Structure formats: structure tokens, C-alpha cells
């Protein structure tokens, strides 16, 4: 490139160029519309009481039993299912999370991939993992106790869950049992502590248990009161009041 060829367009405003707009996503100046962008609108769980992914009753019974051992009812608060965690899970599995929409899912899944990453990785979506995992868990209970997982007593359920957590039992060859336990634990906690619009954390019970004041956005009135119990009531993202 010669020097005289450089920067020939210097100083000519793009706006003045007669070239037609070629791409939908060209922008100049701020957009006029000030309403909340549709893609950023909160996405509450559907409230019609219908299950979208956990359509099999046996699966719902199994996951409810698991969730209520992970977060049981006691003086500190409701159980996971009482707080709506199964509804929460169904909503999550029906959406982008369940579809693994953000995951890089191209194959092959390399041998030694999990060891290299120090973390299990999946090409299967969370929805698929729940499908196979819950069936395998139920089959395991039938195999070992001749009963549904949800019909086992708490001690028996805890023993299976502890075995899954430690990796001392394998539900089925196609299920990474430890990872499936971690998935259920993560989702139970999410349901218990996420904003109630997602179907769990009913009446903000999870937040009340630990003292989290929720979807507030300004603590300047309180920040100087260091070390004090502020006793702030939690607020949800879309409150009724």
C-alpha cells in the first residue's frame, strides 16, 4: 500500500455516504425505543401448573424425594419441594438450561476429557441427563430395595444419595452417577435460593433462612452500620405488593 492511498476517506462522515444500509445490525446513534429489550425481559416460570419436561409422574416422585432429602423440612424452613423446587426444575429443564443451549456440544467426547478438565463434561443436555439419571435412580432402587426410590425411608434414601455423592455406587453405566448427584444438588439449591419468579424459593423462604434481603439495589443507607444485624425484609424481583 502506498502512502497516498492511505486514509483517502479521512473526514468524510459515514452518515453522508449514500450507500444503502446493507446489514440489519448496523447502528448509528442510540436506539429511540427506551422500553426494556425483549431479550432481557425476565422469564418467570410458567404458572399454569402443567409440567413441561417432568411429565412422568414417577420421575416427579423420584426427584421430589431426592430434593426433600437434599433440603428437608425443619424449623429453619420448608423442604425443597414445599419451596417449589420441582416446579423450578421443570421450568429450567424446559428452557435454555435444559436444552444445554450454551454448551459446546460438538463431538467427539475425548477419552480422558473429564480427567484433563478435572471436571466432568457432557455432550448430553441437562434435560437428557435428568431423563436417564432419574430412570436409572429408580431402577437402582428397584434393583437394590425392590421398591421405588420415593417409597424408601429417609435413611435408605440418604444412603443411596451419599453413595452417589461419594461415587461408591453406580446407577448405570451410561450415567455419571457422581455428576448426576451434583447436578441435582445444584438445581435443588438454585430452586431454594433463586428468585421466586422461577418457581422455587416460595415466599422467599430460602432467603429468610440465611438473611439475604433479595432483589434490592441500594444499600447506601445501611453500609455504614457494619457488623449490625440489619433485619432487612427480603424483596423479590417482581413483588406483589
Amino acid at each position, binding site marked *: 500500500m502506498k502512502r497516498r492511498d492511505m486514509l483517502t476517506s479521512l473526514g468524510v462522515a459515514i452518515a453522508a455516504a449514500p450507500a444503502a444500509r446493507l446489514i440489519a445490525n448496523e447502528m448509528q446513534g*442510540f436506539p429511540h*425505543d*427506551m422500553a426494556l429489550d425483549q431479550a432481557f425481559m425476565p422469564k418467570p416460570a410458567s404458572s399454569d401448573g402443567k409440567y413441561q419436561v417432568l411429565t412422568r409422574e414417577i420421575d416427579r416422585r423420584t426427584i421430589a424425594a431426592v430434593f426433600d432429602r437434599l433440603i428437608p423440612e425443619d424449623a429453619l424452613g420448608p423442604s425443597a419441594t414445599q419451596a417449589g423446587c420441582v416446579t423450578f426444575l421443570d421450568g429450567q429443564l424446559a428452557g435454555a438450561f435444559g436444552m444445554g443451549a450454551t454448551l459446546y456440544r460438538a463431538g467427539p467426547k475425548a477419552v480422558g476429557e473429564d480427567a484433563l478438565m478435572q471436571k466432568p463434561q457432557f455432550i448430553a443436555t441437562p434435560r437428557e441427563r435428568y431423563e436417564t439419571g432419574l430412570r436409572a435412580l429408580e431402577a437402582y432402587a428397584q434393583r437394590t430395595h425392590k421398591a421405588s426410590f420415593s417409597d424408601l425411608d429417609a435413611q435408605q434414601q440418604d444412603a443411596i444419595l451419599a453413595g452417589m455423592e461419594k461415587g461408591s455406587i453406580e446407577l448405570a453405566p451410561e450415567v455419571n452417577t457422581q455428576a448426576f448427584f451434583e447436578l441435582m444438588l445444584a438445581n435443588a439449591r438454585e430452586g431454594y435460593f433463586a428468585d421466586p419468579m422461577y418457581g422455587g424459593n416460595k415466599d422467599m423462604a430460602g432467603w429468610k433462612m440465611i438473611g439475604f434481603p433479595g432483589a434490592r439495589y441500594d444499600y*447506601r443507607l445501611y453500609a455504614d452500620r457494619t457488623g449490625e444485624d440489619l433485619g432487612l425484609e427480603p*424483596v423479590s*424481583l*417482581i*413483588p406483589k*405488593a
Partner: protein
Amino acid sequence: MTPKRNWKRIALSVGGAAIVAAAGLGLWAGRTLDTSRSNVADDKVALADVHITDQAAIRRGEYVMRMADCAACHNASAGVFTGGYPFETDFGTILSSNITPDRQTGIGAMTERDFFNAVRHGQGSKGFLYPAMPYTAYAKLTDADMHDLWAYMSTVQPIPNKVDENGGMAFPFNIRLAMAGWNMLFYDRLPIAPTAGKSAEWERGRYLVDGGGHCSACHSPRNLLGAEKASLYLHGGRVGSWHAPDLTGNPHVGLGKSSAQDIAEYLKTGGDKTAIAAGPMAEAVEHSLQYLADRDLNAMAVYLKSLPASDKPRPQPIAADSQAMQRAALRYEVNCSACHGVRGEGMGNMVPPFANNQGLQSDDASSAITVMLVGGRASSTRLKPTGAGMPSFSWKMDDRQITETLDYVRNSWGNAAIPVRESDVAKMRKTLDATKNLPAN
């Protein structure tokens, strides 16, 4: 995504009533339609053929163009002054005209006299103009300013862009002659007469406010025929979904507590210590007022400060201990205080305070309802370029919650305002086609 511009319904009721009024008023026609003031202008050379070399006149003319805010309405996607800007009215859509010197589609064939007739008398090349074009105010422009404006227009790049201004108007409102009747009732073709005992600065201020600035077009209330109510001059008006506040010396809802300096700062930068321009006022500041000389802005401020206070008493504030106000206090802390301040003090020069904000306390809460529902953007000027956005809340709050929140900010920190009607919020939600609120839990 076409921006909604229904705030520009300046003369939305120009149609029906005016047609009725046109009948039987022939007596007045002579005076109203008299364009003899235009005789000072040349009637031979068309704009497209004019060659003006007086650079000082051209520069002054550009200033008149800024003062009269021509660009705000006559700019559109085809380029500067090419028109086509839609004014959505209940009678159909009016488009602004192409005012570039293009001979076929613009005003290139007009002589200077034609131009004077159009700008000051509302009589264009295709017949009567609709008062969306504020010729009732431009009628006050001096001959000197008009000559300079003509000089400036001669330097504008001619761009062909055919605009069918009233093609989107329904019959009979598409008949321009209807405007003749309206003019007979509400149009004064004469220049401003000096007022005894007033300073030159005051006179200049009045000229800017009433002439090019056409402030009353928005800030005066209008009657059923869409004309400004002279007796309530600058007492505050309604522009589409926005309230244009009282500009009189009223200390509660007007400019009584603002100094002339505050007012000049607001006009120049888009904000002062009590308010920040948004909506239609942001456009006025961005396109027009920020370009005016300090002495002119000071003159406008001096003139506005001289206006006697409107007769609107401060109402009794809503008691802070009601349940609704208590709920709203928490809602304010959760949603609003991050920007508007824990004590309604606003944020820097980018977010308006609520405490002691006169415009906010107006009886007409339309502007506040509008921005709560669909958001808004502050003006962006050379001196205060931020142009911060107010987020929309229609998706989150129902009509009651918005009503309570507005009552809270209009009645806290020393503020006092009449209660907002929930039905007004509901109506505005519909008018603006704002999102319905999501289910709460």
C-alpha cells in the same frame, strides 16, 4: 423500529372543528389572510436560483434556523431538511415537507415572498399549511430574521425527496382550505409590539419565547379547537403523552424557585439543579436551544421570570403513613433510589432529583406516567452529553404500583401533589402500547 412520535400532535384537533368554524366567518378573512407583510421580500428569483454571498447573513440565518428549530421536524432519513417526518394525529398522518432548494420536490421554486408567506402566514405552495407547522409563532419573526433565514436556506444542499404531506390524512381533513377557518379564529398575522417600560433584554426574550422558540405551542393549554388558550399563556400544556410544565412564576409547579441563571443553564445544557429535559423538550434542547447564544438564553430566562405566577396553589401532601405510601417507600428504595437518590436528590447532572422538582408536582402527571411505563432518555448536549436513560417499568409494575410510586415521589421530601389516578395510568398504558406487567410472586 419506528420511533413513536405521537408527542408531536401539536394540532391534533385542527380538523373537524376548524372546518365547521370556516363557515360564515368571511368577514375576518381579509385580515387573517392579509399577507402584505411579505411585500418586503423579493418575488422574482426562485430559491434554486438564488446566489447569496453575504456570509454574515448566512451565519445569522443558520442561527434563526436553530432558534426556530426547523431541523427537528424537517429532518428525516433522506437527509437534512428533506422532510417526511410523520406527525401522527387522530385525523391521519401529516408529513413534514422537503424544504431543501430542490425545484421539483422541495422549495426550490419558491421566491423569497412565497417563503415568507409560508413561514409567517401558513400559506404554502400547495395551499394552507396545517398548524403542525408553528406559523402562528413564526408570524412574530422579524423581516431581518426572515431575510437571513432565506439566505441560509439558499445554501442548503438540494435533495430530491417527494413528500405527500397530507396524503395520509382522511377526508375531509386532507382539504387544506379547512385551515383558513382555523386561522381566522386563532391566528394573528402581526409582529410583536413593544411593551412600555420593558428592557431590550426582556423584549428580546419575549421575541425568542413567542417567535422562533414557539414555547407556547407546548407549554400553553389548548382549547377544544386545538388553539392555545391565551388567558393561560405558558401555564403548562399537554403534548401527546407528555406534560409541558408551567413556565410562569408559580413557586410550586412553575419557575418561581428557579433563578434566571438556572433557566438559562437548563436551556443551554438540558438540565439544571431541579430538572433534566426528556421527551419532546430533550429534542428542543438538542436541536435548537443548546445552539443559542448565552445572551439570548439569558434574555429568555429574564422574560420567563417576569411572568406572573399562575394561580395553582400547593395542595396538601398525601400523608406519609398510609399503607400505600409505606409500600411505595420500599418500592422506591428497591427500584428508584439507586439513580434518583435515597433522599430524592438525583444523581450528578444526569438523573433529575425528585425533591423540589416543580414539574414533577404538576397536577398533570403524564410525563412521569409515560417514563414509568416506557422509559425515556435525557437530552444529550455538547455540555452535558450523557443522555442517561430512564428504564421502563411497565413489565414489572401494575397500574396500582405505578400510581403509588408516583404519589410517593410527588409527595415526599417536601413535595406535594394531587393523587395520580390509577385509571390515567391504565389509559396511558394502552395509549402507549406499553408491555403488560409480568405475574408477581
